[in-house]
């Protein structure tokens, strides 16, 4: 079990989501699931798998820069009752091998945990070929795949453990860079499908995922200074989405979704799909990547372009909130 405390939360954060998941979570997962095999498309060092590989050389295969074959080999291993974790860059595992994910993980229901590293804008100066702003949308639309998006490095470690216990196809996207912000400094229950309220507030419900949970908490603090109280939800599971928390928040005057993903097809869309078929929900402001490619730069510069920094999130919420009062 991964237990979060102040000290290890800081250490995990240094490793980033991927480093913590593969360097700590995966090694923990081995204690409960002996027959785990890890495959990578030439991304093991980048992903933080070196410690795992050194400890368990027989449990790892590098299939080369071949994401399609990565998923196919994983499916073959899975069909022989192996628990398989695959990792490649989020852009490539979700798009280069999209059909393989659909066929093997979706249609054939192979129990593969596919981990997309460097999702969102994590790959900064590599540019748009390496940004993954569509992966949630793609994975979410394939029947039978659970989609996770951890909010900090410690949660990434918890997510990989939980995914190995699920016995179902799972996609996990890792966002943020090394030294990513810490959302949780104390231990908590992580359950796939059950979101976590990280800030209470009666006026607005802000539903965030991945890297945007931390920025949303900061935005909520800014709004609090304006006398607006914001409930912040860490929607770490995007599929199946936690509809209970949405229902519980129905008395808010405004819903806001925040994600480091295109505003089409991601978290905001998933929320809207639920609330449009129910009555009594407040309007939903969807914040995310503004349906356009970006000018490459550092991480902060990229978030700024899409108004995803805490101050910008707070500003945009304030404008919307005032317009509906």
């Amino acid at each position, binding site marked *: 079990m991964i237990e979060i405390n102040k000290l290890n939360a800081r250490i995990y954060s240094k490793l980033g989501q991927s480093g913590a998941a593969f360097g700590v979570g995966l090694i923990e997962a081995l204690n409960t699931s002996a027959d785990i095999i890890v495959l990578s498309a030439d991304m093991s060092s980048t992903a933080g798998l070196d410690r795992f590989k050194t400890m368990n050389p027989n449990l790892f295969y590098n299939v*080369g820069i*071949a994401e399609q*074959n990565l998923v196919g*080999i994983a499916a*073959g*291993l899975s*069909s022989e009752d192996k628990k398989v974790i695959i990792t490649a860059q989020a852009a490539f595992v979700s798009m280069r091998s999209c059909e393989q994910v659909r066929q093997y993980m979706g249609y*054939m229901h192979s129990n593969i945990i596919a981990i997309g590293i460097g999702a969102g804008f994590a790959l900064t100066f590599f540019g748009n070929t390496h940004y993954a702003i569509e992966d949630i949308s793609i994975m979410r639309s394939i029947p039978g795949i659970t989609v996770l998006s951890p909010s900090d490095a410690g949660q990434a470690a918890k997510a990989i453990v939980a995914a190995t216990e699920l016995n179902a196809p799972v996609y996990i996207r890792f966002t943020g860079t090394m030294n990513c912000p810490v959302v949780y400094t104390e231990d908590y229950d992580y359950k796939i499908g059950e979101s976590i309220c990280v800030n209470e507030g009666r006026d607005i419900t802000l539903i965030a995922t991945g890297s945007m949970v931390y920025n949303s908490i900061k935005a909520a603090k800014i709004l609090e200074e304006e006398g607006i109280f914001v409930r912040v939800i860490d929607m770490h599971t995007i599929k199946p989405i936690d509809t209970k928390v949405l229902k519980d928040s129905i008395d808010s005057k405004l819903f806001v979704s925040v994600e480091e993903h295109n505003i089409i097809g991601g978290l905001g869309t998933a929320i809207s799909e639920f609330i449009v078929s129910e009555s009594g929900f407040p309007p939903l402001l969807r914040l995310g990547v503004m349906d356009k490619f970006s000018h490459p730069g550092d991480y902060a510069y990229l978030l700024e372009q899409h108004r995803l920094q805490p101050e910008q999130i707070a500003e945009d919420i304030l404008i919307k909130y005032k317009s509906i009062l």
Partner: protein
Amino acid sequence: MPNMEKYNYLKEISHKLRLRILELTYGVKKSGAHVGGGLSCVEILATLYGSVLKYDINNPLDKSRDRFILSKGHSAIALFSALEQVGFLTKEELDQFEMNGSPYYAHASRNLLKGIEFSGGSLSLGLSFAVGVALACKRDNLNNHIYVLLGDGECDEGLVWESLMSAAHFNLNNLTVIVDCNGLQSDGYTLDIMNHSSLADKFKAFGFNVHDIDGHDLNELQRVFDLKDTENPNAIIAHTVKGKGVSFMENDKRWHHGVLSLNEYELAISEQK
């Protein structure tokens, strides 16, 4: 089984497979079936199911069984016919071919209890899957063998070559890839559409132990299936004729997926001896 007796047995299976493929094709009427590529791999499937593969229809989940993965998924009509011949499927089950809701349609869907290892349809995905299966069986020290059937048109797909490279890299000597080289694909001759030049040379260059044979010659098929390399993955480049055994279908791309009229059906059946 002595050689001659085995030959006659495999010939008899091949004959029955052709009859059944034609019957099923006629049975689905205007929705048509992938009859041409089904007929080209008849001897390959007859040899595999009649002689080469280790399986037990009463114990279909036996870990040590050989695996047969149909990567050229549109030849499911031939696979189903073979599975019926050896008892995995009943006649009544296969008579449901391409009826609404039937599990047996143009492409097979994985069902181990019925001897179906893979959900085919999307070309090249069976080979990549087979590499993973072969890797798993080696890890588990199973003394079995994994056979995959590809089409030559299928070799246009990039994933085929990723998979072949990885099979050799992981020393999968428990894998045999058979290519049903019938020389035709949906739009015409493979030579015109995407010329692979020599597939045998390409497979050799990718690290395979290669046999280049007549894919309708039951003796040759039997011989090369027995010649497995102990170090490298194996490949059988089986030269075949699309629509084999039906004069008006042979080497005619229109029978990649075709509809049989009653007259054509009767003529086709009359040619089977």
